[in-house]
């Protein structure tokens, strides 16, 4: 039997290859090949959407961004895993992969958004990592006052109209205890939305963030932070490893914590990570499912955590001695990942995302008021999630 696994090349195919080698060794007669491509979530989706729309059977197993299983399931592109017990995974992943009571994909690895901060600067000014956005603002003002460095920004986050901007919007929104979509129905709270947008805009207006924040994408945040030009940064887990790399100006000066809350709210963060799905058009359904079970197993998750620095999807692995040895900071990460919220689970997520990100971008660029932004999000989401 031959199976073809689609992995985007940003997800360390060479490390996954080792996992697959193990699988092949354990299952003589099965040959697994990797197809890489579409290096961003979007490019990958573009490619898969074409292939799947054309009902192509060449791919058996697909890696999917956490936001996609619902869409793939609705389109009938993935085969469900009957009777799979999802409770072994972190709850957020169980939720993200279950659509209408069916398990449509199994988690590959976890991720979430963190608040990165400059330990050295905070210590210098005797500031604790902020628990609320207001604390963060205050901290920035204090540090800026002391450092007097025009190039040092307080907070970097994603304002460009990319997927990250959806999280940007959702962080304070969720923090107010609101949710966006429940059971496929829109549960939009306009006040919370306005507050969320106002908050971000205030960072720009008050000089905490750069004026051109609407240009900033995920990796820009990482680069600026790494160059030592940023006090606080909102980013995914990948930024950690790089901030400790040889090109980094901030090695050993980086702290990671949960993202702040709105004053009076709960801290909330955005869930990331990727999932394994079995193509509905695969001619080797059973073999593919068996492979996915293996790829999503604790052993594989552990292997990837150790060798690929990918966050595990099993709670227990965060305490695993081998894992902690390889990536000490995972110990801090667990709490964050555990409390991370998945973005709305809906087949029409792409449209939801598009609406939110462009609005956030417009508000941050100053071409739309937060109120208008919230109104626009509401009206468009209503249309999408009729």
């Amino acid at each position: 039997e031959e199976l073809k696994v689609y992995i985007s090349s940003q997800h360390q195919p060479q490390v996954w290859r080792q996992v697959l080698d193990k699988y092949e060794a354990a299952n003589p007669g099965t040959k697994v090949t990797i197809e890489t491509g579409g290096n961003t979530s979007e490019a990958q989706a573009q490619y898969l959407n074409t292939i799947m729309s054309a009902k192509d059977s060449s791919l058996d197993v697909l890696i999917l961004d956490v936001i996609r299983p619902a869409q793939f399931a609705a389109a009938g592109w993935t085969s469900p895993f009957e009777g799979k017990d999802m409770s072994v995974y972190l709850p957020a992943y169980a939720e993200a992969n279950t659509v209408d009571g069916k398990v449509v994909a199994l988690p590959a690895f976890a991720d979430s958004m963190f608040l990165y901060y400059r330990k050295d600067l905070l210590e210098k000014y005797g500031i604790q990592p902020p628990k609320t956005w207001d604390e963060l603002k205050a901290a920035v003002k204090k540090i800026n006052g002391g450092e007097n460095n025009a190039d040092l920004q307080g907070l970097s986050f994603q304002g460009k109209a990319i997927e990250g901007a959806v999280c940007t919007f959702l962080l304070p929104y969720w923090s107010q205890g609101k949710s966006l979509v429940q059971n496929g129905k829109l549960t939009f709270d306009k006040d919370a939305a306005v507050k969320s947008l106002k908050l971000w805009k205030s960072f720009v207006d008050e000089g905490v963030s750069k004026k051109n924040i609407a240009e900033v994408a995920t990796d820009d945040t990482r680069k600026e932070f790494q160059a030592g030009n940023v006090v606080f940064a909102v980013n995914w887990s990948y930024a950690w490893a790089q901030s400790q790399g040889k090109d980094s100006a901030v090695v050993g000066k980086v702290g990671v914590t949960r993202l702040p809350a709105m004053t009076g709210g709960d801290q909330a963060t955005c869930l990331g990570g990727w999932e394994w799905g079995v193509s509905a058009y695969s001619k080797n359904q059973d073999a593919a499912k068996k492979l996915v079970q293996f790829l999503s197993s604790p052993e594989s998750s552990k292997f990837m955590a150790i060798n690929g620095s990918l966050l595990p999807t099993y709670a227990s692995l965060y305490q695993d001695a081998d894992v902690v040895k390889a990536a000490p900071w995972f110990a801090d990460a667990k709490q964050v990942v555990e409390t991370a919220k998945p973005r709305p689970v809906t087949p029409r997520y792409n449209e939801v995302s598009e609406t939110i990100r462009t609005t956030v971008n417009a508000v941050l660029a100053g071409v739309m008021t937060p109120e208008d932004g919230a109104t626009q999000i509401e009206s468009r989401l209503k249309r999408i999630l009729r």
Partner: protein
Amino acid sequence: MLDLSDRALAVLLLAPAAILLSLIIVYPVARLAYTSFFSLSLTSGLPAEFVGLENYKLMIDDPIFWETTWNTVLITLITVPGALVVGMALALLANLPFRTQWPVRLSLLIPWALPLSFAGLIFAWFFHSEYGVVNDVLNRFGIPGVIWFNSPNLAFAAICLTIIWKTSSFMALIILAGLQTIPRSLYEAADVDGAGRLRQFFEITLPLLKPAIVVALIFRTITALQTFDIPYMMTGGGPGTSTSTLAMYIHQNTVSFLDLGYGSALAVVMFLLSMCVTVVYLRIIRTKG
């Protein structure tokens, strides 16, 4: 080869083109037009359903459709003449008798040889408010830099500039080729007749270039109406959706939202738009006689 009657020869000569076109375009287009009458959204989980003109009706009160269409038309109206004028100027400059020709030719072609998507990326980088060379140059002249992508107008301007830069070389290339086939003796005659350079340009160069220019314009207009990569890469349509184009919207609807029915209907509308333009151009060609 045999000598055939004109008719038979014509059929023979046009056949390869016809076969290729029908295989690669006509069949898919027919499917597209067909799909546009169906409600077919892969994310709905529902089977395709014939809905007649429903998709077209939806468009009428879809503000994004109108906004992107308007942006598209605007981009076309700005960049097509822009590219024509710049391209013409470049072609005329490149047609000067330089001793070594290749640097000139090369610099004429490089913009065009740069893949579209990367041209978008590079210019996004150029217009970056902090690390971009445009603001850097402005600063050097004592002009404060601006955040290009924070303002719909500036973002639009940046996009148009980029498109003009990128596409004027296509224009220039075609015009240059046209220039080189104009017999020199006509300029001599005009010179003797007393026509100055400008006059020669309008009386000799332009009329004789007309066929080449019309061809370039037709295709530049069609591709302008299909503008996608550059705004996609530079602004992603932002701020908000203020620089989004129809092609981006079609792309979104089909490839991202998987709403094939609506996407097809949008594509058909774009096709009709292009056809209108084409018909106008063809009329111009025909009056040439």
